[in-house]
C-alpha cells in the first residue's frame, strides 16, 4: 500500500492525504482549465480519523498518502462531510479495507450516501452542533445544508482551529502546493468556483456565514475539499464569499453572443463600444471561444449582461441557448442588460433571448435586431443600446 505518494502536514495532528487530478478539464460541465484536487484529511488523534475521501479512481493515491503517516487500518472513524462522488467515491473500498468503528455524516448525508452506494454500511447521522471525542482531539459538526447539497456539512477541529469546509471556500486548481499563500491563482479560481457552484444558494451562504460568525468559532485555517488550504487568508475568503453572495452590481458588462455570418458579431462590438464610451469595463465573449462556466465566472463581478443570437431555423443559436439555460440555473441577481441579434427572415430568436433574460430577472433596455447585415443605422442602434444599458447600470449601482 505504500507508494510514492506523501501526506502533507497541515498542523501537528492534521495531514492532507488527498489526490491531485492534473487531467480533468470538464467537471460536470464546468471547465476546469487548471485541473483540481480532491482533498481528504487525516486527523492523528488517539482514534485516527479520516475526513472525506477522494474520487474513486484516486483511491490508491489517497491510501498511499495515508500510509506515509500511519497504517490505514488504524483509522477508527470516517467523517463524510459531503456525499458528492468526488469526495465519497473512495468510501466503499476504503470502508471495506479499514473496517472503521464509525462512519459519520449529516442526516441528509446518510440518505444521500445510501442512495449513491446502495450498501449495507451503517452510516451514523450526527446532528448540527454535535461534538465527537477523537481521543485527545474534539471535532464539532456544523450542518451547511445547500452549501451546496442537502447533505453538506462542515467539521471543526477544536484546539487547532481547523475548519473542514467540504466544498465551501474551495476551488478547482491542481497544484503541487497545498496552501493559499503559495498559490497566486487562488482568487480567480475561488471566484469561478463560487460563480459556478454556489451562486444559486447565495441567500443560504449569507445565512451560513452569519451562523459561523455568531458561533464564536475562530478558524485559524480553512481546509476545503478542493484547492489550497487557507492558512493565511481564511478571513479574507470568508469576507469575499459574503461580497459574492450579496451580488451587488459592479461597473462591468459582459457581452455574450454567437454569430453565423458575422452580423450579430458586428452588433456585439457596436454595443460594447457604447458601453465602453460610457465608462463601463466591458468584456466581449464570443461563444465559439468561451465556455459557459467562464461566462458565469466573469458575470460574478459584473452588473450587466448583453446577449446576442442569430436566428437559426426559428430558434436561438444552440450555444446561446446553452449559456442562457446555464445562467438561468445560477440565478444571478441584480443584473441589467439587453438582447440583440441578426436574422434573415422573421427573427424569432430575439424574442426568445429577451424572454429568457426577463425570466432571469434581468432589467432590460429595448432590444436591437437587424435583418441580414447591419447598416450604419443598425450599428448606431446597437451602440445606443450599449449606452442605455450603461445608464441603467449606473442607476442600479447607486
Amino acid at each position, binding site marked *: 500500500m505504500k507508494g510514492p505518494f506523501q501526506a502533507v502536514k497541515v498542523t501537528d495532528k492534521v495531514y492532507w492525504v488527498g489526490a491531485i487530478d492534473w487531467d480533468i478539464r470538464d467537471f460536470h460541465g464546468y471547465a476546469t482549465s487548471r485541473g483540481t484536487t480532491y482533498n481528504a484529511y487525516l486527523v492523528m488523534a488517539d482514534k485516527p480519523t479520516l475526513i472525506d475521501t477522494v474520487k474513486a479512481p484516486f483511491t490508491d493515491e489517497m491510501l498511499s498518502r495515508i500510509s506515509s503517516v500511519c497504517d490505514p487500518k488504524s483509522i477508527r472513524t470516517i467523517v463524510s462531510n459531503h456525499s458528492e462522488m468526488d469526495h465519497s467515491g473512495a468510501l466503499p473500498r476504503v470502508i471495506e479495507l479499514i473496517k472503521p468503528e464509525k462512519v459519520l455524516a449529516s442526516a441528509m448525508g446518510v440518505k444521500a450516501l445510501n442512495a449513491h452506494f446502495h450498501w449495507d454500511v451503517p452510516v451514523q447521522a450526527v446532528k448540527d452542533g454535535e461534538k465527537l471525542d477523537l481521543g485527545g482531539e474534539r471535532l464539532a459538526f456544523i450542518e451547511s*445544508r445547500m452549501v451546496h447539497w*442537502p447533505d453538506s456539512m462542515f467539521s471543526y477541529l477544536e484546539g487547532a482551529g481547523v475548519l473542514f469546509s467540504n466544498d465551501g471556500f474551495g476551488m478547482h486548481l491542481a497544484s503541487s502546493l497545498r496552501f493559499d499563500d503559495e498559490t497566486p491563482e487562488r482568487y480567480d479560481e475561488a471566484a469561478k468556483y463560487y460563480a459556478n457552484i454556489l451562486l444559486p444558494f447565495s441567500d443560504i451562504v449569507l445565512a451560513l456565514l452569519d451562523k459561523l460568525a455568531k458561533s464564536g468559532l475562530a478558524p485559524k485555517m480553512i481546509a476545503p475539499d478542493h484547492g489550497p488550504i487557507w492558512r493565511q487568508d481564511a478571513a479574507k475568503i470568508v469576507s469575499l464569499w459574503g461580497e459574492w453572495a450579496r451580488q451587488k452590481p459592479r461597473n462591468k458588462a459582459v457581452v455574450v453572443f454567437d454569430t453565423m455570418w458575422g452580423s450579430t458579431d458586428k452588433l456585439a462590438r457596436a454595443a460594447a463600444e457604447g458601453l465602453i464610451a460610457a465608462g463601463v469595463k466591458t468584456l466581449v465573449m464570443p461563444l465559439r471561444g468561451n465556455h459557459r462556466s467562464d461566462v458565469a465566472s466573469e458575470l460574478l463581478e459584473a452588473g450587466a449582461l448583453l446577449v446576442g443570437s442569430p436566428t437559426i431555423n426559428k430558434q436561438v443559436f444552440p450555444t446561446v441557448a446553452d449559456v442562457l439555460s446555464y445562467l438561468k440555473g445560477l440565478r444571478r441577481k441584480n443584473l441589467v442588460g439587453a438582447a440583440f441579434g441578426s436574422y434573415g427572415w422573421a427573427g424569432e430568436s430575439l424574442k426568445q433571448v429577451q424572454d429568457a433574460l426577463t425570466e432571469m430577472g434581468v432589467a432590460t433596455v429595448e432590444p436591437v435586431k437587424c435583418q441580414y447585415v447591419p447598416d450604419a443605422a443598425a450599428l448606431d442602434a446597437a451602440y445606443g443600446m450599449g449606452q442605455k444599458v450603461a445608464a441603467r447600470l449606473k442607476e442600479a449601482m447607486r
Partner: protein
Amino acid sequence: MKKYVCTPCGYVYDPAVGDPGHGVPPGTPWEKVPEDWSCPVCGVGKDMFEPES
C-alpha cells in the same frame, strides 16, 4: 390553496397533499405548516420557500 416552492431545490409544497410523512396532513394550508417543518427533499426551513408563480 396556494402552493409554495423551495427556492434551493425546487420541491413544491402542495397543501392538498401536505407532507404526511412529516406530520403535515393533506389539506394543511401553508400558513398552518409548523414553523419548524423543513423541506423533505433538501432540509431548508420555511423561510426559504416562495409562493409558486
